[in-house]
């Protein structure tokens, strides 16, 4: 049984641009354009790249006011949603009863409602979770008539400013409603590449026009999912289903920075989210394994699934790589994975086994490439 792949409003444009299309989370998506993954990656770091991320889920939560929505939303995420100012966005994640992560997300206070963007592969489950937990007091409105574009890179501000100079005044994680070429867009200054940039929710009918006006700017190239993955890996960002999943706690994943103090032990809104017992105890007592950055000492990339060992010979696997590949900006192989807490210190050496051979990797600080956010 095969289900037809879904298409984003930019599907025809991708084909016209010569994209290589692949199935991803039920969508037919561009993995690369004729430029190729390596050059698309480098172009994004040097200038600006345009990504179609319309496969991601866009959801609006409405209630009596933002405060009531935020209070309800906080029962699903270990994050301070109530204290988020209007016009600001924050990273968060849905947790489960055992303290694992069900999905990671971005949410914004857009005045009278809360706007959530979730991963494509999890969106059905996320919508069901929000609906069953929050309705009927809160309405869960799935946004089906908007595309989502990301414009990323040091040239993103200059490029988007040509369509509306107001975007230049936005700071990292600001959100605003902005007119872009006549389309009413929900813009946030954020992204998942480690670069400055914007994410733009645009009415589907105007998506292609907007994409084409951005691509007409010399500095802007279309970028596929291949480079999106190497960019986020260099930025040390987690990919759901790979670096984090229903088994990993946010403490193991090194995402404690996203759990504000007031949701932790002794905080004014302590707990009250799924798996709070485990997450709060993990925060207090520490965890047995941690996500770390790993740099293979040789030139060979080591990819997801490669088992890690403490010794060059013998012994049981102590962890594994959850994301790995070649970092074009780093100019060598990079990876992330889980290792025992004792080895989760900069400079520790572990061994990855592939093709029957073990090769050393060094535990390094994340990110691999410094972020270029406009604070």
């Amino acid at each position, binding site marked *: 049984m095969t289900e037809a792949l879904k298409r984003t409003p930019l599907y025809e444009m991708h084909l016209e641009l010569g994209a290589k299309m692949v199935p991803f989370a039920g969508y037919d998506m561009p993995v690369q354009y004729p430029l190729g993954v390596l050059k698309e990656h480098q172009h994004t770091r040097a200038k600006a790249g345009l990504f179609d991320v319309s496969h991601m889920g866009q959801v609006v939560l409405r209630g009596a006011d933002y405060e009531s929505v935020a209070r309800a939303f906080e029962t699903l995420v270990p994050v301070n949603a109530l204290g988020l100012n209007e016009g600001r966005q924050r990273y968060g994640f849905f947790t489960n009863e055992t303290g694992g992560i069900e999905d990671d997300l971005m949410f914004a206070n857009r005045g009278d409602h809360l706007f959530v963007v979730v991963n494509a592969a999890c969106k059905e489950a996320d919508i069901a979770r929000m609906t069953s937990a929050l309705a009927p007091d809160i309405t869960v409105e799935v946004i089906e008539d908007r595309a989502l574009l990301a414009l990323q890179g040091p040239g993103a501000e200059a490029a988007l400013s040509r369509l509306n100079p107001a975007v230049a005044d936005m700071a990292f994680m600001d959100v605003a409603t902005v007119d872009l070429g006549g389309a009413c867009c929900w813009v946030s200054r954020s992204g998942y590449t480690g670069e400055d940039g914007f994410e733009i929710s645009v009415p589907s009918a105007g998506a292609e026009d907007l994409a084409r006006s951005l691509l007409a700017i010399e500095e802007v190239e279309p970028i596929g999912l*291949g480079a999106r993955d190497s960019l986020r890996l260099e930025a040390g960002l987690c990919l759901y289903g790979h670096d984090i999943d229903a088994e990993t706690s946010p403490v193991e994943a090194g995402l404690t920075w996203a759990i504000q103090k007031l949701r932790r032990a002794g905080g004014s809104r302590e707990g009250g989210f799924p798996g709070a017992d485990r997450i709060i105890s993990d925060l207090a007592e520490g965890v047995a394994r941690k996500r770390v950055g790993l740099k293979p000492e040789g030139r060979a990339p080591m990819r997801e699934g490669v088992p890690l060992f403490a010794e060059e010979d013998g012994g049981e696997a102590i962890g594994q790589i959850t994301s790995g590949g*070649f970092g074009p900006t780093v100019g060598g192989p990079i990876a992330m994975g889980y290792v025992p807490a004792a080895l989760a210190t900069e400079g520790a050496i572990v061994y990855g086994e592939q093709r029957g051979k073990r090769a050393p990797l060094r535990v390094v600080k994340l990110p691999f490439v410094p972020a270029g956010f406009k604070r």
Partner: protein
Amino acid sequence: MKYTEEHEWLRVEDDVVVVGITTHAAEQLGDVVFVELPEEGTEVARDDEVVVIESVKAASDILAPLDGEITEVNAVLSDEPSKVNDDPEGEAWFFKMKVEDLSVMDDLMDEAAYKNFIG
């Protein structure tokens, strides 16, 4: 020039067989970022994995197209794997091998047959 179904090209040069991958294969692989070459002097049998290539997308192997001995490897590729994309059917040969009987190459595809094979 002869071709295999594994998208290698073979060229006889001074009684040894020079082996590389086709332009079509290099395009399919995407940007090559790592090449691991065999040791010179290694005896190989047909279909042995002799070279590891990693592109930005995935790892793949080059299989020995014939029985024989690896006489020389193109060490430049270890330092500059991107040459595989730049000039796959020229400068970016992978290894040279000595084979007992060059007539075994007659069974491989010629250029027309390979073009037909990749459609």
